[in-house]
């Protein structure tokens, strides 16, 4: 298109002007919707976080008081918010490595053979990904009951299972279990694609040099897979840091706030009508997500 314009005879400037117009016409619907429903809220959220905006101020948004960093200061002094940060951190720090290890193990197993059952596997690992978390949570709430399916299984192995969702120490592990079950499919597919890019020659050369399967995995496969692992980690952390639906439907953030996440905290503050406070909390989460992603990029890039 660019070259087409340049090739054409006639006043170039008029042409260019016309192209600019056409381009913006193509971009217009997106720009309008994106501007009104994404950019505007994103900026007002930031602005709101420096005010004491409450639900009663909706009719007169310009009359709210500017409070500077007070909301942020208050948040870092709010035990409930700090608790929600710790909970979210717990969920992320345990959930991500666990999901990645399970997904990688499955991907490696699937890659080395079992092609015949690939369709069955795809349905098996992918159904949890595509189904609504709300629906899934209903079943899990049932499975995780004191006399539910999971504890029956544990009993068969001689272990007395806890009352998962009503125990302050086991509610979070229960949510992590559900998250791993739900998300391993996505990561498995991504890892599988990465594994298929590992050159067979490298593996064969290592084999003739006498490297065993473990050595080959850690010395050859894993380094080649690094970008894919990075991507998986970033995708997961963006998702896991936003933990909300699992705890909303399964534990209501309880018992005793043991599964209250940052998003859940924000949602509650919104419910109390403290919009400025909620916005500040959401921005802290946003900054957290950006920071974690940056750190991961650094960490995985530098270790070449």
């Amino acid at each position, binding site marked *: 298109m*660019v*070259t*087409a*314009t340049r090739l054409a005879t006639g006043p170039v400037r008029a042409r260019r002007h016309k*192209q*600019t117009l*056409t381009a*913006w016409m*193509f*971009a217009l*619907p*997106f720009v309008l919707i*994106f501007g009104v*429903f994404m950019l*505007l*809220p*994103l900026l*007002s*959220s930031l602005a*709101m976080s420096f005010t004491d905006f409450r639900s009663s101020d*909706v009719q007169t948004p310009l009359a709210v008081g500017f409070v500077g960093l007070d909301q942020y200061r208050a948040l870092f002094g709010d035990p409930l918010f700090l608790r929600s940060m710790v909970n979210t951190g717990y969920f992320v720090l345990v959930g991500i490595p666990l999901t990645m290890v399970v997904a990688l193990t499955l991907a490696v197993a699937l890659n080395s053979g079992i092609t015949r059952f690939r*369709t069955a596997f795809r349905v*098996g690992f*992918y*159904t949890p*990904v*595509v*189904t609504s*978390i*709300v*629906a*899934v949570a*209903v*079943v*899990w709430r*049932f*499975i995780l009951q004191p006399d539910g399916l999971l504890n*029956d299984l544990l009993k068969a192995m001689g272990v007395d299972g806890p009352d998962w969702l009503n125990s302050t120490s086991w509610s979070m592990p229960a949510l992590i279990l559900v998250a791993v079950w739900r998300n*391993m499919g*996505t990561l498995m597919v*991504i890892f599988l694609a990465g594994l298929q890019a590992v050159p067979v020659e490298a593996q064969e050369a290592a084999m003739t040099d006498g490297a065993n399967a473990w050595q080959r995995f850690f010395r050859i496969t894993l380094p080649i897979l690094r970008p894919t692992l990075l*991507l998986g980690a970033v*995708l997961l952390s*963006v998702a896991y*840091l*936003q933990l*909300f*639906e699992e705890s*909303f*439907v399964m534990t*209501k953030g309880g018992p005793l706030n043991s599964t209250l996440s940052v998003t859940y905290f*924000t*949602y509650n503050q*919104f419910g109390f009508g403290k919009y400025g406070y*909620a916005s500040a909390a*959401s*921005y802290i*989460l*946003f900054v957290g*997500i950006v920071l974690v992603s940056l750190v991961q990029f650094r960490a995985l890039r530098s270790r070449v």
Partner: protein
Amino acid sequence: MTLLPFAWMLLGSFKTQGEILHSPNGWLPHSPTLGNYRMWFGQLQIGAYFVNSVIVAVLTVLGNLAFCSMVGYALAKMDFPGKRLLFLMVMATLMVPGVVTFVPLFVLVTKLGLVNTYPALILPFLTSPLGVFLMRQFMQEIPDSLLEAAYIDGAGTVRVFRSIVLPLCKPPLATLAILTFLGSWNNFLWPLVAAQSQDKYTLPVALSLYSTGQNATDYGLLLAGAVLVITPIVALFVCLQRFFTQSIASTGIK
């Protein structure tokens, strides 16, 4: 193993409340009943929630296909002032968590008088930065010579876009359609806030409110509801599973 919870869900949905509370709990229902389903289709009017979910999902998908491909084309194949800034903003918002925008979004929707309407459920999701990115990446690979030939033959930009570019873009359009549909069908936080009366509830919102409300202990009913919420998407997935997995993998590989 991963499907066990679904099997449990399906079997449980045919049990009566009495049987579910009975311990120890067997897998197969003793006296299978359709009572739970009858309740959903009758008294609880799941049909209406289903229609809401479909309306919202279909319109969201159509909007995304149209608008993301249009702006994607401008970004991939046209030169215009503001292009870099536009692309930069799209990329910058890729990682914004939904919770950051939802408070002002609610204020905005309230101001516009749209609370509890379909537009409130649809408009915020009518375009997506990820969709724009997907379309632009794919369109950049279309050879310029192909488009130039069409221009020299006298076709206008709209014509070229509709009859050359879009037909070539079936793979990313399919990906975008699947991802958007999934996202919309399972979307929860926003519909929970924006749909305030029963007549606008989507399936997940309805199910969650029943499952935390007065029916919270009626497990057979909830399991049947869960089955009904996931059936359409699972059916779609089983039919199109190859496309589904490719879609999710492609967002990964970028």
